[in-house]
C-alpha cells in the first residue's frame, strides 16, 4: 500500500478517553508498527514506533526482548549510514512486494489454501470475521482481506477496543472483544503466521528483517489466549 492509501487512514471512531504515549501499551505500539510495515513498508513512522515501543509497558518479557532486538537492528542500521533506509526499502520490496516472485507472500490464503493463491475461501473466512466485528475493507483498499497488514489492522482495532473499554469500565465489552480477538488469533493467525515468520527470516540477511520476524512471533505469542491466562 502506498502513501495515497495511507492518506486514507481511517478515523471512523475517535477515542473517548485521553491517551498519551505513556498510555499506549507495548503490544499496541508493536501491532501498530507491524501493520504499517506490512502495508506501507519501512517508513520513518514504522522505525519510530519500534523505538517508542521499547520504552512502553505491557506485554510479555519475550516481546520486550524482541522489541529491544528490533531497536538494536535499527541502531545498527543508522550506524551504517544514510543509505540504510533506502537499502532497507529495496530489500523489503524484494521480500514482500515484487516485482519478481517474492520469497515470502504476506497472505494467509497462500499458507492455508492448497491452491496457494490469493482470494480463496480462507480469505473469505477472514472477511466474515471482519463483518462479524462490524468492519469491512474500505472500497479503495483492493488488497485481499487476509493480507498480513490488514489482519494486523484488525488486531490493532480489537486491542484498542479493549483498552478503551477497560478505561470506560465496560467489562462486558472487554470480555466480548477479548473473545473476538482470541477467536481471530487462535482460530486463524496461529495457523499461518509462525510459518510466514520462519520464511521471512530465512529469506533475508538484514538484521532488521530477522528482528521483525522475531517481533511478529513474540507478538503472536503475547496475544495468544493461552499466554494470557
Amino acid at each position: 500500500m502506498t502513501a495515497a492509501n495511507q492518506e486514507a487512514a481511517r478515523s471512523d471512531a475517535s477515542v473517548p478517553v485521553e491517551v498519551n504515549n505513556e498510555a499506549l501499551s507495548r503490544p499496541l505500539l508493536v501491532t501498530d508498527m507491524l501493520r504499517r510495515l506490512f502495508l506501507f513498508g519501512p517508513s520513518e513512522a514504522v522505525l519510530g514506533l519500534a523505538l517508542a515501543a521499547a520504552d512502553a509497558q505491557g506485554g510479555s518479557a519475550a516481546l520486550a526482548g524482541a522489541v529491544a532486538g528490533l531497536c538494536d537492528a535499527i541502531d545498527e542500521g543508522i550506524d551504517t549510514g544514510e543509505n540504510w533506509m533506502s537499502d532497507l526499502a529495496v530489500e523489503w520490496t524484494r521480500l514482500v512486494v515484487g516485482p519478481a516472485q517474492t520469497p515470502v507472500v504476506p497472505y494467509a490464503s497462500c499458507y492455508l489454501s492448497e491452491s496457494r493463491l490469493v482470494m480463496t475461501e480462507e480469505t473469505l473466512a477472514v472477511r466474515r470475521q471482519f463483518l462479524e466485528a462490524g468492519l469491512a475493507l474500505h472500497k479503495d483498499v483492493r488488497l485481499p482481506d487476509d493480507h498480513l497488514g490488514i489482519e494486523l489492522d484488525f488486531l490493532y482495532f480489537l486491542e484498542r477496543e479493549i483498552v478503551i473499554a477497560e478505561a470506560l469500565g465496560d467489562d462486558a465489552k472487554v470480555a466480548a472483544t477479548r473473545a473476538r480477538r482470541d477467536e481471530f488469533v487462535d482460530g486463524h493467525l496461529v495457523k499461518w503466521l509462525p510459518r510466514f515468520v520462519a520464511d521471512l527470516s530465512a529469506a533475508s540477511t538484514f538484521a532488521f528483517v530477522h528482528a521483525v520476524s522475531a517481533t511478529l512471533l513474540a507478538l503472536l505469542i503475547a496475544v495468544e489466549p493461552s499466554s494470557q491466562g
Partner: protein
Amino acid sequence: MDMKVSRREFLKTAGVTAGVTAFQGGGLLTLGTLTAPEAKAAQLGMGTFQVRYTADVMCPAECGMEMWIQNGRVAKIYGNKAVPMNDGACCAKGAAGQQLIYSPYRLKHPMIRVGARGEGKFRQASWDEAIDVIARKLTAIKKKHGAESVVMDAGDVTDRDHYHRLFFAYGTPNCVEHGAICDTPRRHGPKLMVNGKRWEPDLMRPQLVRQADGSLKQDSTYLNKLIIYNGWNPFVATRIAYESRGTVAAQVESGCKVVVIDPSLSNTAAKADMWLAPRAGTDGDLFGAMLRYILENDNQSDSAKKYINWDFKKYSVGWEEFEAAFKSWWTKVDPINGKTYFSIDWAANRTGLETKQIEDLSHLFGITKPAALVWGMQSPGHHYNGYCASIIGVALNVITGNFEVPGGVIDTEIVKSSKGGSATGKQFLKRKVKRTIAGKEVEGEVEHLHKDLFGSKFPAAWDDVVADYPDAIQNGIEIRYGPFRGHRYPMKGYILRTGNSVYTGSAPYAWIDAAKAKEASGEYKLDLFVVIDTIYLESALYADVILPEASYAERQSVSDIYPSQPVIYNRDAVIDPLFESKKPTEIMNLLARRLAELGDTDLKAADFWQKYRTEEDFVNEMLAPAPGRANIGTPLPYPKYPEGYTIIGNPESLERGDVTIDDAKKVILGKPVTVEWLRANKGVAVWPMSWYRYKKTGSDEPNGVFPPTSTRRIEFTFDWKDGDKRFGGYRSYNEKIEKAGGDVPEGLKQIGLTKYPSTFYWFETIWNPHTNPEYAKYASEYPFQLICGKVHHAMSGTQMVHWLGEVKTEGTWQPLNNAFESVVAEAQPIGREPIKDAKKKFKANSYSVGTVWMNNEDAKRLNLKTGDLVVVTNPLRKTTRGKVFASGGMRPGVIKMGFGAGGRFSPGTGPAYESRKYTPLHNEMVDPNALSPIMGFPAFADMIVSVKKA
C-alpha cells in the same frame, strides 16, 4: 548531541506521534466500520453467484467465457456457448484463469527502478509518483527530440486502443502491436492481393445462416473436403479455437482429408491423413511447384484434371501479368541444383520431398473442392522470403476456386466486425506538425514521421517493425520519404504494454545491449523505458517504471478473433482490479491528464478524462461501427435491405427492422451495439454468414464492394496504371520512392530491387545452405536447420500454472527437468485444518521443460540420447544450452525449439525460470540483423546450427 542520537530521537518522536494520532483518530488504516444492518446485509450477501460473460486472454485464442462471480471473486470458469469461436468449450488454459488472476506473484504496485537496468532492483511507488515520473520524461523528450522519439508498443493485441489513442494524441505515429513480431510475411499475400490478413479454413461452426424462408438458422454442417495446413498447428498453437475442434469434426462429418506440411510431427500432423516433412524454409518452393503443376496440368475437359476454376478472372485483375512473371522463372536455372525453378524436380531437390509426393499433393489440391490451403507463422511467417510463399498461396486458393466458397478458405480480416472507430485516436495522426530539416522548416502530418512507413528501411511495413528497435535506440531513425525526408530522430522513449520484446523481439542480447547503452554523458540512450503488464517478464528487468495493469478479468474491451463472419464479444471486467492494478482506461486518463498539467496542449480533457469517465464509455465508442460490413454474398445476410450497403447496428435491431437507411452513403443504420446490449445478450453479437462475398447475389458479376482493394477485385498485380489512375497494393510505396528521386529503401537493396515489384516476384531465404548459394559454405560446420514453434500452454502467461507446465506437448516440451526440491502443499483430505507445507523432492524427468528436439538418427550419429545436455551454436558464435529430445517425429537435419519455452531469465516466470540454465533460448540463435526485406520481420526460423554434447 551526536548525529545518531539526533536521528534516533527524531524517529522515536515520529513514532510516538504516529502512535498517539492513530489511537486517538480511530485507529484503522484499511478497515472501516459498518452499521449493524450494513454488516448483516453484507454477511447475508456472501455466497450468492452472478454469471458474467467475458473473453479469455490466457492464450491468444480469446475464447468466449462464462465466469461465475461469488463474493467479488471469480469462483468458476466455463466456456460461453453463445460465442461461436469456442462454442462453449473451455480448455485447461482457460480453466486455469484463477491461477493468473489470483497469483500472489502478479505485479501489484507501481515500481520505480533503483538499480541499473537489468539488475531487477525496484522500489514501490505511488501511482501519482510513477505517472509523474513518466509524464515528466515524456514532456522533456517531446520538447528536445519531438514526440516521434517515443514508441508505444502494445505487445499484446487486446486493449491496445487506449494506449495507442494516448500516444497518437501525444504526437507520435510510432504505435505498434503484437502483429509486428508475429507473422507479417505470412499475411503479406492476403494484404497485398485482397487487402486482408489471415486466410483460414471455413470451419467456424455453428454458423448463423439466413434460410430461404427468411429465418435464421444455426448451421453446424461441415462442408470441407481438404485442408492443407502448412506450418500451422491448430491443435497446439492456434489463435483460432474453432480450428481445433473443426478440423476433427470435418474429418468425421464431411470426410475431409487433412494434410500437414511441417518438418516436425506436430499434434496436428499426428491426426492428419498425410504428413509431409519438407526441409525448413522451403514452403515457397513447394507452393511454387504446386502452382506450376496446376498450370501445366490443368485440363478443363478432363474432370480428373479440372484444377482451375477460371471464373476467378471475373473477380480479379492482373492474372496475365502474374502468370507471365511466374512462368518467366520456368526457364531460369537454379544455380544450386541446376534445375529450372518451380519444376517438380527442382522442388523435390530443395524441399527434400519425393517428386511423387509433390505431384500427388498438387493434384489432390487441384482436384478436391472445396479445399483450403493455409499457412502459418511457423512456415512463411518466420522465413525471410515468406512473402513469396504467401503470395503464391493466395494465388493457389483463388485460381482453384476455393476463396470464399462454403468449406473453402476465408480471409477473416475482411469479414470480421469492425471495431475501434474513433476511439483508436487515428484522427490525431492528421495533425499538422513542423520540423526543421537542414535549417528549413517543413510542415507535414504526424503520420509522416512514422519510423517505418516513411523511414529509410521498410516503408511497406504496414504492420510496423519492432525487431529493429535495438538499432533505432543505438543509431537513431532516418525519415527518407514524404514531407519530412531527411529528418533524423533518436528513439528515446519506449512504452511497452503486455509485450516482452526483450525476450521475443529478435535476439535478446541485441535488445539488452540497446536497453543498457549509454551516451557519452553516462545517461541511457533510451531515456525512458516503461513496462505496463500484469506479470513480470524479461523486458521489465530493464524498465525504469513498471505499472501494474488490471488482469484480463478486471478490464474491459472487445474480442473478435478471426471469425468467418462478423462476430464481436465483450471482454467484460467481471471483477474489480486487485491490488493497485489499474484498467487501461484509467492509465490512459491519468497519463493524459498529467501531461496536460505539465503543459502539453495536445492532451485535452475533452479527448480523455472528460470523454471517457468509465471504461464502458471507451468500449461503447469502439463498438459504434460494428459490424461495419456490407450486405453482400450468398445467402444475402439481410435480404430485406439493399445489397451492397454497409450494415451498422446490433443484430436485434437489424432483424426487427428498427433501422434508418441512408441511400446517399449506402448505410443501413440500426441501434448500436453497446456494452449494455452485449451484457443483455450473453456478451456476444453475431451477424449472418454469407459466402461468395465478391459477387452479386444470384449473379456472376462482381459486386464492386469486396474485397476492399483499390479495384474492389482480387489483385494479381501490385502497381499499375489505367489511364491516369494508379492501382495496387505497392502503388503508394513506389510513389514514395519516386517522389524521393528513386532513393531505394534499405530492405529492397538487400534483395537487389529498386522498387516494389508490380506482380509475382521471388527471392531466396537466408541462412539456408540448401537453397541459397551464399550460405552453402556453412553447411558442413552447421549441419542443422533451426526452427521454432509455440506451445501455448507453456508461454509467459501460463508458465506459472504448474499443472499446465506438467503437461508434455510434442517434442519441444518434455519431462526432462533436473531433480529439484520444492515446498508444496501437503494434501488435506478432510477437515478444516490448515494446509501444511511439505518439502518434496521432484525426480529428474518428471516435469516438462523446453527441449532441443531433433531426429533420433541424427542424435545417434552424434552419440546423443534424449536427456543429454547439448550446446547449440550458430555461425554468429552465439550459443544456447538445452536437453535433447530425440524422436522419429522430426525431419533429419532439423532442430526445433519452443518459442518462449526455455531460457526464461525473468524471476517472474516461475518454474521456467528455475530451469533456465538447461533449457534453450531459441531467440538467442536468431540473427538480429536478418530482418526480412519487405516488412522488416525477424527471420525467426532461418538459422543453421551445430550441436555438441555439453
